[in-house]
Every structure is written in C-alpha cells, then in structure tokens.
C-alpha cells in the first residue's frame, strides 16, 4: 500500500530542481562534451589497413580555435559540437607509417551518427565507414561507388563538391538516390572537418613523430 510522503520532501523536490536548472544554465566550459560518446575505432583501423601491425594514439584538444579555423576555411558555419579531447590514430605496418584514422560525429536523422575516417599523409581521404548511424540512407552512401567519389580527394577537392552553403552536392552522382543527397553532403562535410581538425590539432606532433611533413 502506498504511504503518505513527508511534505518536507515534496517541497525539497522543486527546490532541488530549480537549483539544478539554474546551475546548468550558468556559463559552461566549452570543452564539456562527453568523451565517452566516441568509440575506439580499433575494428575500423583493422579494416582500413589489413596489414597493420601497430597503432599509436595522440590525444588532442579540439576547442573554439579549431572551429574558427574551420569556418574561415569553409566560409560557412557547420554542425560542430565536439569540443574536448579527441584521439587521432597513427597506423603502422611493421616499421612503416601507413595512414591516419579518426572518428567524428555528425548530426543524423536520429541523434548523432559516427564515422571513422582513414587519411593518407597528404591528408587525402583513403576510406571511411560508419561506426554508428540510424540514418535511413546510410547504406546508399556506404557503397563503394560513393566511396570512390571521395577516395584520393583533399580538402579543396572535397569542398568543391559542395554548394556554397555546404548543404547539398554541386552534382549528384547517378548511382546515388536523390533522397540520399543530404546525407552524402553530411559525409563530405565530415571529411572536411576531419582533415581540418587533423591539420590544426595534430600536425605538429605528427610531423615530430613521423620526421617528415604532412602535405596538403
């Protein structure tokens, strides 16, 4: 049988809620996004580089400066709420560095989609795959035909595939369903973001580790 609740407790609940909401509404640190939202892309690394033997992770701080740099490069604003510390993976096959892997999030149909990107040392797209997505047209943009549209392209070449506002494709490939065009544009924006963040956050440490420069 339900019993009477102490009236003092009834009063405490709205007071506590009010305090919590006021606290939450106060200025917050820009780097406060949950780091547990990104998955370690170990399976993706093994998939992108079948002959890989080792990887080394580099943690880097993604902050407002990175977003400002990206907006200056693109000329338009874009979804970017992944402040905080993120990881770049430098992949080796035996003693030879073979590429870079990074996981990034994008706004999907339902919640955030997560993509893993593989880049070469010229910061050109080598491969990508979804790690998490509830977007309806995911399979359309994960086909090898669409991947081939992106593989080998650098920042400028990818940027030229998008409209001025970055929200649609300049030219939709025949193999891509019209309904999937918006998601395809999102994937390209994710590639741009991945390359730009790599340049700004990790370039110096990578060049120190690799003992050669990254080309653009």
């Amino acid at each position: 049988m339900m019993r009477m609740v102490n009236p003092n407790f009834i009063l405490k609940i709205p007071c506590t809620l009010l305090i919590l909401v006021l606290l939450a509404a106060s200025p917050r640190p820009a780097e406060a996004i949950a780091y547990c939202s990104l998955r370690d892309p170990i399976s993706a690394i093994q998939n992108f580089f079948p002959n890989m033997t080792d990887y080394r992770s580099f943690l880097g701080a993604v902050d407002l400066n990175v977003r400002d740099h990206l907006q200056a490069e693109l000329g338009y604003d874009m979804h970017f709420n992944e402040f905080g510390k993120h990881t770049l993976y430098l992949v080796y096959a035996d003693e030879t560095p073979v590429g870079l892997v990074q996981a990034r999030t994008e706004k999907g149909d339902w919640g955030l989609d997560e993509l893993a990107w593989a880049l070469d040392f010229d910061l050109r797209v080598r491969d990508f795959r979804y790690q998490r997505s509830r977007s309806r047209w995911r399979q359309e943009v994960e086909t090898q035909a669409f991947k081939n549209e992106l593989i080998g392209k650098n920042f400028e070449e990818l940027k030229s595939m998008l409209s001025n506002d970055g929200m649609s494709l300049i030219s939709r490939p025949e193999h891509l369903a019209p309904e999937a065009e918006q998601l395809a544009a999102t994937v390209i924006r994710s590639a741009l973001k991945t390359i730009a963040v790599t340049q700004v956050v990790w370039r110096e440490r990578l060049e120190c580790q690799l003992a050669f420069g990254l080309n653009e």
Partner: protein
Amino acid sequence: MKGFWTSICIFTVALCCSGNAVSDTRWYDQFRWASEYLFRSQYLSESDLTDPGFWHTLGFEANGTFSSGQRDIATVNAQLSLWCLKNYTRRAPVFDGPSDCEWIPKNFFVDFHLRGDGKLNLRLGHPELPFGLEAPVSTNQTIRQLNTGRDLGLKLDWGFGANGTIGRWNYQTLLGRGSGIRYKNDADSYSFTGRIGNNFDYQGFLPAPGVGFSLFMAELRTGKDATSERWRVAVDGVTYHGPWGFMGQLSAGETNHRSTLNGLVEVNRLNRAGNWIGYLQWKSFNQETVAKWQRANSIILGVEGELTDILTLSAQVERELSTFAGPNQTVLDFQARFRIER
C-alpha cells in the same frame, strides 16, 4: 579500504612503467579528466515510511593511454567515487547500513596492449564483468540497470583477463576474486566471466547494435568462509529501427545446483536531437526451489535527458509484479548528474 589502496598502487605502477615512454609529450596531456556530482533519490512504496532515501556521489575519473615508439603500450581507466547514503534501503552490500559513506574504486583498471594491433590486451584491476548487455551498455552511475548484478551476484570484481578486437568481433574475459567491490576476500571464492560479441569497443546508454554470447562460472563470497556456487550462459542482442531501439538478454544456469532462468527486454525511443531517451523494461528472475519455481517480475518505465553539456536528469518508476520475498513494491527513482570533462 585495501581495495582502494590496491587501485592506487596499480595506477601508480602504470604511470611509473610508462613514464619514460612519453618523452615527446607530458603524460597528463594524454589523459582525459572528469569530475561529477550525482544526486539520487529513491522511494519504496512499502518500505520507506515517510521519507525517501538519498544517495550523493562525488566522482573523479581519468582515462589515458601511454605510448612508446610506434605503438600504444597501456591504457589506464581510473574511476574513484565517494558514495554517501542517507536512509537508502536498497543498497550495495559494501555499505554498513542505510546511512553510510564509502570510497569506491569503480571501473579501475589498466589494459596492457600485448599486441600493437588491438587484438590482445591484458586487463588488470577492478572492471565490470563482461557479461551480457553489461558489456556494450553503460550503466555506470545511471538509474537504469540491467540484470547483471542480481543475476550474477556481482557487477564488478577484482581480477585480470584478456580482451581484444579481431575484425568485427570483440572478446573479453575476466578471472576475478569473486568478492565484488571489496578486495578483501576471506573465503575460497573466484569468478570467471567471458563474452564474445560484435557490438565492440564502445559502451553507451544506447549501445551499438549487435549480438553477444556470455559465460559465467563462480564461487562467490557470501560471508566469512562462505560461498555460493553459480554458473550462467547468456545470449544478448541489440537492434534499432529509426528512433526505436530494442534489446534483450536471456540467461540460464544454476545457483547452488538449483536451476535459474532470467531475462530482460527493453524498448527505447530517442528524440530527433538524440538528447532525450525513454525506455520500457521487463525483467524476469526465475529460480527453482525444492517445492516450486519462484518468480520475480517487474516493469520499469524511465526517461533520461541531457539538459545541457554538463547536466543529465533521469527518472524511473518500477512496479514489481511478483517477488521472491516481501510485498510487491513501487519504486520511484530520480537522479541529477553534473559532469565536467577536460
């Protein structure tokens, strides 16, 4: 407190072993840091006469990787919490009474990367048991819980084991002391847990889709020189259709040579922005006794919302339809979680 100091020792050893391996960067630059405060309240309709129970948590976390040359060599995950209860009826056995404070090392372990490709790691410390949905689902500091604690008798244990990712599959094992949160063990106990699944490398409130197969064998410490024998096998699965998520777990085995069959089904729904989640769970525990099968079933309705980057609110109501002992209760939970990460 012995477990706490053991955790500190493991953490320190890992730092010292890796100290000279990070000459190009400061070791703490490779770490993520987090601190959090949780306020939780629980009300039991038949047990809490007037006031509900309160649970305050102050938590500190560090997660980082040490690297050398061209590879990562160890990853440290350290979660230390101060749990303080006031008038809290349903609590972990680590507490001395309904009003008590304890320092708890939660997921506190080191993964030594024995191979550079992520296929074989050695885990040492105090991790969650890799069993069923507990492996891909994060129930750490959430009021939403799965069956693991009640089904296995443990949720965390001190021990070591191998884990890794091979292609699309992830495996985890743990050989533990069978004593749970407490490191102290004055009984001849142990636990072994293993899981293989394809929802890999990630723990989330909404986990990655996939399936998993688990095994658990243990002599659990139930008191001084007293143990309870258990074994379980389980299958679990997670799938999504647009905003709807479905997950379930079925486990079977024996507790002290008596058959047991337990299950969980959950349907959840996400809003378009992804920051509000509602869920409906059905939990069922069934235990063979001398005379008949005992059954405990409950239905749980809950919601969790990220109001801001640092504040998550959650609420849950559970109605017990049948229990092994005592009256059927209605259990109300509310939690506010503040978390700041650096």
